């Protein structure tokens, strides 16, 4: 049973106080839905959780130990997808996915990659240069990494944006399966998406 806990988080961006004394507790199998208007600090909170930014005040605990004390172990168990697709436009889909597999310390498996791409509706796109894909396709390549990683904690910033109905259902499915396998997820979304059977916590920012 893994846990992610945030206590007394305070975040200041520029000169604005985004949130103060924010806390939550998440354990394996749970999903945290971050809600709030644009500019309320959702992305900032996600970046704090990833360790990309440091909070003014407060702590983030992974399995009851501060993240700062176990940065490497925490990051190996973390998958983050922000607004950027983080894909190199000049390289092929295959090359991009292989790079991220290597970063995560795993061997890129051609069969797994093909299966993940097919599930995202991108069958046969392995050799295509990313620059030649549509925006939606690029996003789906980025999302296909979800099926190719073994991290317990998924932190996703607006993963449902610009997805068509079928892809939306598929992504909700993938997240649901991840939670059932004992993973946990934190995500933001303006859309109301039903992740079947998940234990959901909700956190509203900017009130």
């Amino acid at each position, binding site marked *: 049973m893994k846990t992610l806990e945030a206590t007394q988080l305070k975040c200041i961006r520029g000169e604005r106080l985004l949130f103060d004394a924010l806390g939550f507790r998440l354990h394996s199998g749970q999903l945290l839905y971050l809600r709030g208007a644009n500019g309320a600090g959702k992305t900032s909170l996600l970046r704090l959780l990833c360790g990309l*930014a440091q909070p003014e005040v407060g702590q983030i605990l992974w399995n009851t130990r501060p993240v700062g004390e176990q940065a*490497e172990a925490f990051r190996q168990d973390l998958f983050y997808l922000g607004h950027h697709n983080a894909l*190199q436009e000049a*390289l092929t889909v295959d090359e991009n996915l*292989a790079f*991220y597999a290597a*970063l995560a310390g795993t061997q890129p498996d051609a069969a797994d990659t093909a299966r993940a791409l097919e599930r995202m509706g991108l069958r046969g796109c392995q050799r295509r240069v990313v620059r030649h894909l549509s925006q939606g396709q690029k996003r789906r390549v980025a999302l296909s990494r979800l099926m190719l990683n073994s991290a317990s904690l998924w932190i996703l910033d607006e993963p449902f944006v610009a997805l068509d109905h079928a892809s939306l259902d598929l992504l909700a499915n993938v997240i649901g399966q991840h939670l059932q396998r004992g993973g946990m997820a934190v995500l933001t979304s303006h859309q109301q998406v039903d992740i079947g059977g998940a234990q959901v916590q909700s956190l509203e920012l900017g009130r």
Partner: protein
Amino acid sequence: MTSSSWRSVFAAVVRREIALAMQQKGDVLTPLFFFVIVASLFPLGVGPEAPLLLRMAPGVLWVGALLAAMLSLQRLFAADHADGSLEQMAISGTPLAVIVMAKVLAHFLLSGLPLVLIAPVLGIQFGLDARSLGVLTLSLLLGTPTLSLVGGIGAALTLGVRGGGVLLSLLTLPLYIPVLIFGAGAVEADAAGLGVGAHFSLMGALLLLSGLFAPFAITTALRISLE
């Protein structure tokens, strides 16, 4: 993660940098052409005064290499920062220092080494003899890795900053000056019969120092830029 997986991540990053450079050859060739043009303009501008050109040669070629190295620093982190890849590297299971060193090595291979290889050809325009050309090439080989390491710090600090190019020059050029002085000085010392031992030892020391401190400095600067 074990050190053997660090090695495979290191290799994967270097391979990726090279693959990207192959796709965007202009990025890599532009600083090289700049070096060639700058080095070729001096003999044309100064005129055919052989002794003068001979004296100027080490300094001019070293400054040209320095400026070309600085031109190429922009592409060290900027593209990855813009498309979110740098963030992914910062939160991956591999220490960022490993990834950074791989990028710096790739930068040296793609931007520094070509300068080293083409310098002797350019040196001929200045009338340098074979021995001096050899010393010049060696001094550049010893100095360009340091340029990549130290330049990486500036590149990391000025990431995403508006007008970053100018700021990068202001930050990095002062740090390049020791390398320039010892590098160009080595050729002159050898021509004067004093031997290159002292100069090359100092350049070796600079390389070791920057090799020790740059990874830490670059990683810290990157995390600050990513905040």
